[in-house]
């Protein structure tokens, strides 16, 4: 089964929820800016699933996706953009390139998701990326990133998540307490016992929340917001986010930050 499977399809199913991201970003933008965000830039866009969900959510919306990997964007074009028809396709542009080179018309909203910016391991590199993200925004634009934290984010270990027809396996292979570098893999495991090992590899520096906030401010963003998901009595996420100044640390958490241009 592993040899038949498509890693991008498995990734999208296991990791992404672009409609949820679109809803959340739209809500925050409307609350802070009093109007709808229309133009999105998705950095590290991969298959551009978010670009697709964005333009589908409103007929006036346009999106540009930027990624270093042409093969992954081509996959996304075949999977999402071509089947959606010419009109939708005409509102999405995919750019093969470095996210640190700003281009095209300015966006209302930009995002760097799935912790991809952690590939920048020095303050200078990450600040340069944040500066580019800001330069590509309209003057009242918003920049969203997600971040990963908690006690277990700094440990080695394996977490399995059963997706029904396969198991999504997240492996934190190496954490270096001296440099805060984290090496991770995604593996996919199938019911017939076959396995797609190291379908994705991430060589990151795990930046902490205050470091990200400091670098965003150094890059010129005027205000940084932390969002945290409210949980129900069982501890499950409710999809409702608030802005806390304090949270209790947890074994593992991920959340969003938004920075105002």
């Amino acid at each position: 089964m592993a040899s038949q499977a498509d890693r991008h399809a498995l990734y999208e199913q296991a990791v992404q929820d672009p409609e949820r991201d679109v809803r959340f970003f739209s809500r925050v933008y409307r609350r802070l800016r009093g109007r709808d965000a229309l133009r999105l830039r998705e950095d590290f866009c991969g298959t551009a699933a978010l670009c697709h969900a964005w333009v589908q959510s409103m007929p006036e919306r346009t999106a540009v996706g930027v990624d270093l990997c042409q093969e992954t964007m081509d996959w996304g074009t075949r999977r999402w953009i071509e089947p959606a028809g010419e009109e939708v396709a005409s509102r999405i542009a995919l750019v093969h390139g470095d996210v640190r080179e700003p281009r095209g018309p300015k966006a209302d909203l930009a995002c760097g998701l799935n912790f991809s910016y952690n590939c920048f391991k020095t303050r200078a590199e990450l600040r340069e990326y944040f500066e580019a993200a800001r330069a590509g925004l309209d003057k009242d634009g918003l920049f969203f990133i997600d971040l990963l934290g908690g006690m277990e984010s700094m440990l080695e270990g394996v977490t399995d998540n059963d997706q029904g027809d396969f198991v999504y396996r997240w492996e934190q292979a190496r954490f270096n307490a001296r440099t805060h570098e984290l090496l991770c893999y995604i593996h996919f495991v199938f019911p017939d016992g076959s396995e797609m090992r190291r379908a994705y590899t991430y060589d990151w520096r795990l930046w902490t929340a205050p470091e990200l906030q400091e670098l965003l401010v150094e890059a010129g963003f005027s205000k940084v917001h932390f969002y945290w998901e409210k949980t129900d009595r069982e501890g499950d996420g409710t999809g409702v986010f608030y802005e806390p100044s304090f949270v209790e640390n947890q074994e593992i958490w991920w959340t969003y930050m938004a920075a105002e241009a």
Partner: protein
Amino acid sequence: MRHKKKKNRMHSPKTMAQEADRHELYQRAVQSPEADVEFFTERFEQLRNRPALRLREDFCGTALLATTWVRSDPERTAVGVDLDGATLGWGRERNVEPFQEVIGERLELIEGDVREAETALADITCAMNFSYCVFTSRDALRSYFEAARRGLKDDGIFIAELYGGTEAIDILEEERELDGFTYVWDQERYNPLDNSTTCHIHFDFDDGSRIEKAFTYEWRLWTIAELRELLQEAGFADVRVFWEEVEADEDDEDAMMSGTGEYVEVTELDENQESWLVYLVALA
């Protein structure tokens, strides 16, 4: 008066907590100045090929380390800097005066801000017990590191102690029994949004009494990576990291790892522990 005092005491005997002295308990529970002096001496010899003679102890509190330093070698001098005059006074009375003859004029205590105090340049400046974590912004901490570097000789070194690990970013209470009292380390609050933490030290006694919040700390728990960056921004040429080797109890796999007193340089150590302690050694 003397008689009356005695009588009162008989009617309402003081608890052990009331009799105890928090600075003395702290010194016994937390500090190991001889081990620090040994580590500093060896590191400096190894890195600079000469003996270290002058120590500056920032955030010195009772100046136990500075006192131990000057007592370790008749050629050694030291200066301790702390904001808290009362604690310095305690140290003068309890750590310095009993050894005044040996120490002579070789130890100076300065009541003041570690970022501003000026004194003869040091071979080694140290910031122990995580005290510099009171600086919660990069600018404030960098300006302290710059001051530390200004206070060093050309081949001086700056040593800062840091703790971390997965338990350091959690809420927990840890007890350690010592002779006559129990030391309680209480991580009351940790906020992963800004890495701020509130910690207390309490002391418990056999009669059930307690010194609650004998010491309280409001810190930002910096990461090793952040400190290395700030030390370099402050002008230090190189930053080395050492941590204490630990060993497991062979008879009890679940027991806590214990320190061996041996420090090794951390280069490619790719693991996090529940709890670790390192010395960052920054070369001027």
